[in-house]
């Protein structure tokens, strides 16, 4: 059964379209601390430790860690086809923009409602960065 659908405006950073199951992290993410072949987060004590971000729509506050490793981390995930399908962030920063630019993963921010309130892990999310629209289909509701 299709759950309720919410459409939100957003601001495009890197264009394109991506859809998939949402994976929400309240903590910043370092792509280098994921398994490059599978997309499983292997950072100790991280909220997403053991979770897989491959082909997900990743919702997180910001990137973190050294600029050198962050880009290489996402680049390696993309080489193995296990990068996220799209990324929704709160605090944009240059390193994350460059990472998304190099691997051509849509990246948006400034959702009209707080993404951490609207989106839960497991919801189905479509990110149409070109049109500046995020559509959330709630899981099981």
């Amino acid at each position, binding site marked *: 059964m299709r759950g309720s659908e919410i459409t939100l405006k957003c601001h495009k950073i890197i264009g394109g379209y991506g859809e998939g199951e949402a994976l929400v992290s309240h903590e910043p993410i370092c792509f280098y601390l994921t398994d490059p072949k599978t997309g499983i987060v292997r950072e100790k004590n991280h909220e997403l430790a053991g979770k897989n971000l491959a082909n997900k729509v990743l919702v997180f506050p910001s990137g973190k860690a050294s*600029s050198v490793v962050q880009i290489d981390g996402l*680049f390696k995930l993309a080489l193995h086809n296990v990068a996220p399908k799209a990324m929704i962030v709160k605090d944009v920063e240059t390193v994350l923009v460059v990472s998304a*630019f190099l691997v051509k993963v849509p990246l948006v921010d400034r959702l009209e409602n707080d993404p951490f309130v609207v989106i839960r892990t497991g919801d189905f999310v479509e990110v149409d960065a070109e049109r500046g629209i995020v559509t959330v289909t709630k899981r099981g509701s």
Partner: protein
Amino acid sequence: MHLTKEEERILKGGSGEGAQKALELLLAIGDAYDAEKMIPISRAHAASSGQEGDLYFVELLANGGARCRVPTSTNPVYDINYFDSLFDVPKDEGEVARRVMEAYKRVGAILSWSCVPYMAENIPVYGETVAFSESSATPYVNSVIGASTNREAAQSALAAGVIGKTPKYGLHIKENRKGTHLIKVEATLRDEFDYTLLGYFVGKRIGYGIPVLTGIERHPNTEELINFCAMSNVPGAVSMFYIPGFTVEASTVEESFQGDSPKDKITVTDRELKQVHEELQTMSGRVDFVMLGCPHYTLKQVEEAAKLLKGKKVHKGVSFWICTSATTKALAERSGYVGLIESAGGHVVVDTCIDEPCWIAYKDKVGMTDSPKCAYYRRFKEVMVSRLSDCVEAAIRGRWV
């Protein structure tokens, strides 16, 4: 975003495909931040790394005929010829490093291969507009020197070096340089390792922001500031900070916050620093290797290690390494420090850093370092973290505690 005729020409490929790609990346960043226009920069530092993402972009530019228009220095990679004679570095990894170094040469970069280029090879002055990537370089240049740079990636900094411009956004705008968090320091800060712990604590607590530190009484020295810059960017993203009275841009707390109130106030005592150290120092026992110089050791730190090793021998089961820049090593050789370290059985290695694939021989080994950054990226089985003097002691004894 408003483009000049010259920028439009470059965007259409008028200066070659390399410059075109560089400008495309800069414009994507400009769009992300709603920048109105591009502004000139006078120098850049590309945090080259010898990894695949790095190789992809620098070759894209080099093969497209791009050349740096302003001085653009480079971060550590590694000399495959040097490491091939020591360890069995995988052929494909070594080839990536070789191609990266060759491509940066082709784009006309300053081949500094140093993560602290602001110490010698590429030094901005107060008020200069630059594009400096590398986690310790960005906050150092903004806060200690008082030039302005955003937290660049290797690629955006290289692109800025090629175009000679960057989008006007972020820390290039005065109001974005105001403090966000007030950090009351009640802890005792004895040496650069305490600043390492402080930086790590602050980065972890605030995540993303511009901390304003009060309560620091003694003027922090260069090494202490470098470590604060580097370590606050391991668990967090700190592109700028203030220590009113010691950093240049604001002389008071009020001025640092530009009249606004802090988002949060955090107090740090000896207890918090001790907790950070306990979190990082998870074990004791036998040590296989000791690795120092993340960020690259300054001449003063090489001298300190040399003096601690004078007349001693590194334990036969331990490999001892110090990473630094070619410039620093040349001076350290001239000053006799390299001789002392080598007589004790240690090595001083240039152009590389702890977080490079050349150290693969230590993948299943236990190491010790004074840099939590080295421990954090988990290239090794286990890494113990303590101050420089403890690391040298462990190297001599073959074990820690």
